[in-house]
């Protein structure tokens, strides 16, 4: 006797619990189930600060938000519609995000005195008025789970208890009509070596599902129709995974072996860890003694003819600056991935920010121009990585790839590309003298201004390069004033010239009559695009352009900016792109800046846009 089904267009669910409660797993399984239904999805985990805090404590709370819908969505959502809180600490840290009338599911078993105290609750919120404005479902998840698992041999009471996350998942799956079979399969595989644990988890999952069906607490169940997505094969992917795959793909597409020099750092470590698993792709990962060595080794590998890459986050990227300066002088290809996090200094290591744009552009001594590429979404990290490699190889230059903690850990469905459709970014090594009998290592390609890449092992092209200023063409050390001025300008021109080799800036202005342009870059694409949608739904027109190339800018950028009366530049910093476009195009653009260590909220961005439109 099934319950009535209500249609919804979209839902945002947040799972929150103690670090030990398995919320990441719960969230990602809920995501997998949802993906199979054809909804569009976007997810964002919220890891606790670096160290495993004591159980039940506020800093120990771990969260995972899933946004799914029957249309193409852009962000994991500003705020959840449904909050699943596994303990008082999780409730405490997350309830402020739940809007009035939102659904709250709590594990009432966890609301004992000890836990309440650890979370700083003087009284039990389940028993006072404080949750009055929410639809509260207080479910004794722990005891229901333990009850359901009685009698499975070899499962300790602790282990039984630990399955409560699967009970919660079962319940949520029922509520939103998600199939639990994929999770059953997943659990059986994951615990293949301990079938009793697999059984316990599966039973808990099923019990949760059944509980939904039978309890009176839930009157309706919801349905979210599939989204109209481009046909094809999809997989759910985080930004760091996509970035890693993009690097492997670039290695294949360029026919160069990939060498990664890295030193672990949050939130970039996952790239090192991911790439360490692709040894059968010829990928060499080198965990260096520090970031300087990581970058240095990548330069050494590039000199030897590898696709040299180094990854880090802000506090590590600054350390690489001198080495990148060397690579600029050597004019060797190199890709530096900066997974931006909140700073300055150590800052808030797990939180996103867009604070490193000016650093990667200018953070080296003297005039040392570098191209910069920034992905706009988790799956876009794949394409952006290939693009960064393409530019590095073609122009023989270090290129920065600017991702952030939000893209890195967030996930979304990724329409898998055909390998054949990927760009050919193969490059050629010099094998012959290029000036009569002589080899001139700084004789440039006329079109790209790139110098030849002659790798050791090539007979007859032996040459020496270094960080001292070099004479045009020959590359010999030179202190000649005019030569230095020339070389400085050539290096700048080479990078500036890339503008002719990248797409023009596209503007999304569905109404065609917008007077306000919103200009963003990189990881804020989702929130800004969602904000624009919201503004348009509210009846106003707004145009949105989003920069993927931060240096050089697309060649039509100035023209685009000047087309609009007003330009708003939302950023997760104090106005870095803003400074650049004001300087380059002399437009009186205005910033919308939030530096909170959390993704921009589209509702707030929408407010800012509306205010500007209405001005």
């Amino acid at each position, binding site marked *: 006797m099934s319950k009535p089904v209500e249609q919804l267009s979209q839902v945002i669910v947040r799972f929150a619990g103690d670090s030990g409660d398995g919320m990441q797993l719960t969230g990602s399984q809920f995501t997998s189930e949802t993906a*199979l239904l054809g909804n569009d999805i976007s997810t964002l985990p919220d890891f606790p600060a670096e160290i495993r805090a004591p159980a039940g404590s506020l800093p120990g709370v771990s969260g995972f938000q899933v946004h799914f819908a029957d249309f193409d969505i852009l962000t994991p959502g500003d705020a959840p519609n449904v909050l699943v809180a596994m303990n008082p600490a999780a409730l405490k840290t997350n309830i402020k995000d739940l809007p009035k009338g939102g659904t709250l599911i709590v594990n009432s078993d966890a609301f004992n005195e000890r836990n309440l105290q650890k979370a700083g609750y003087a009284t039990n919120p389940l028993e006072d008025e404080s949750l009055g404005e929410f639809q509260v479902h207080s479910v004794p998840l722990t005891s229901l789970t333990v009850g359901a698992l009685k009698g499975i041999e070899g499962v300790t009471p602790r282990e039984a208890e630990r399955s409560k996350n699967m009970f919660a998942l079962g319940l949520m799956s029922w509520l939103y009509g998600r199939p639990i079979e994929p999770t059953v399969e997943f659990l059986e595989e994951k615990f293949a070596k301990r079938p009793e644990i697999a059984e316990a988890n599966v039973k808990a999952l099923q019990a949760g599902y059944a509980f939904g069906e039978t309890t009176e607490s839930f009157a309706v169940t919801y349905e979210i129709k599939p989204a109209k997505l481009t046909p094809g094969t*999809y997989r759910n992917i985080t930004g760091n995974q996509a970035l890693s795959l993009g690097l492997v793909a670039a290695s294949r597409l360029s026919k160069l072996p990939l060498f990664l020099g890295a030193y672990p750092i949050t939130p970039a470590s996952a790239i090192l860890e991911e790439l360490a698993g692709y040894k059968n*792709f010829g990928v060499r990962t080198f965990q260096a003694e520090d970031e300087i060595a990581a970058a*240095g080794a990548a330069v*050494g590998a590039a000199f030897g003819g590898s696709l040299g890459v180094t990854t880090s986050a802000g506090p590590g990227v600054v350390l690489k600056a001198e080495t990148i300066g060397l690579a600029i002088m050597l004019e060797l290809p190199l890709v530096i991935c900066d997974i931006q996090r909140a700073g300055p200094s150590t800052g808030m290591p797990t939180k996103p920010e867009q604070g490193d744009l000016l650093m990667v552009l200018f953070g080296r001594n003297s005039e040392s121009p570098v191209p910069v590429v920034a992905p706009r979404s988790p799956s876009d990290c794949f394409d952006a990585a290939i693009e960064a490699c393409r530019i590095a190889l073609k122009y023989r230059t270090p290129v920065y790839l600017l991702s952030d903690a939000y893209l890195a850990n967030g996930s979304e469905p990724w329409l*898998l590309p055909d*390998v054949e459709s990927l760009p050919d970014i193969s490059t050629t090594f010099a094998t012959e003298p290029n000036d009569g009998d002589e080899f001139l290592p700084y004789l440039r390609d006329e079109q790209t201004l790139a110098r030849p890449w002659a790798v050791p*092992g090539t007979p007859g092209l032996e*040459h020496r390069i270094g960080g001292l200023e070099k004479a045009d063409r020959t590359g010999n050390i030179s202190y000649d004033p005019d030569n230095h001025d020339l070389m400085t300008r050539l290096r700048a021109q080479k990078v500036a010239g890339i503008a002719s080799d990248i797409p023009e800036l596209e503007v999304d202005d569905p109404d065609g009559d917008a007077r306000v342009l919103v200009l963003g870059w990189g990881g804020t694409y989702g929130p800004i695009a969602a904000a624009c949608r919201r503004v348009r739904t509210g009846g106003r027109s707004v145009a949105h352009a989003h920069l993927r190339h931060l240096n050089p800018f697309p060649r039509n950028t100035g023209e685009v900016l000047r087309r609009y009366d007003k330009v708003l530049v939302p950023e997760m910093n104090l106005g870095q792109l803003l400074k650049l476009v004001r300087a380059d195009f002399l437009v009186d653009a205005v910033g919308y800046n939030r530096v909170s260590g959390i993704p921009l909220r589209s509702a707030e961005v929408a407010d800012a846009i509306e205010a500007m439109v209405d001005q």
Partner: protein
Amino acid sequence: MSTNGHLTAKDYRTDQEVRWCPGCGDYAILAAMQSFMPELGIARENTVFVSGIGCAARFPYYMNTYGMHSIHGRAPAIATGLATTRPDLSVWVATGDGDALSIGGNHLIHALRRNVNFKILLFNNRIYGLTKGQYSPTSELGKVTKSTPMGSLDWPFNPLSLAIGAEATFVARAIDTDKAGMTAVLRAAAEHRGSAFVEIFQNCPIFNDDAFAFVRDDKEGVNRVPLRDGEPITWGAGAEKALRQRSDGSIEICRADDEGVLVHDAHHEGAALAFALSRVTQESHGGTPVGVFRDVERPVYDDLMAGQLAAATEKFGEGDLGALLHSGETWKIG
């Protein structure tokens, strides 16, 4: 068009004017290297010199091979990337006492423990030459230099002790003007698979003249203690002096015909003897060992890396990009 074949020292000269000061010990090292290279039998194009910054670090410009004059202290890191991706190359690092032991100390010790396959030649002149005469990490305590008008306060490193403490598999010492000795050491270093660390006493006539006069000018061998593998460690004009170990682990001087004279064993697995020998110095013992202190086999980083790549390929097959992209949980739409 390989350049292999009958090469001579001349083939290793470049067209760049050598710009060290007159009388600089670097000239002798360069000459020794250029003479030694042909003997190695490695094609010029397969040889790479990497350096940091300093007088010593100009070395690559003068070797007609591939080369990189990089940034201060980072040559071992750069060489690590190169050697790890290009096991077919013969990679050499030329560095100074400041470059290697001051700013670059960390890269040096990590390269040594990893046993990456490149050779490190440390031109030790106990001074910063290129920046015109500040004291270095090997300068003796109390040294008066431009930056220490009342004498330096830092106890110096003993480069060999440091290298041995950092798990180096090959550690040796040579003298700039002793071409035969240096060539023997270079040969042993080249033959050693893995990291080889060679300290070369190098005179800087401009800023630290005669720092090593006691062994450099010691033609009679009064101060030079030659280390010859498998032979008793004796020295002196008539080979009358010798070394032997005390029960407290330290090393003392004795007469060559005394009992218990140490027999040098560079291949000894344990590092303790090589370390003890590294503590024998002119100041403490009146003698300075030269030659190969330690030369042991240990898995080489680049080989291990190549091995893992091969093993992974063996196990999972040559990577297939399409399959990789489609790995994990996928679903179809439409």
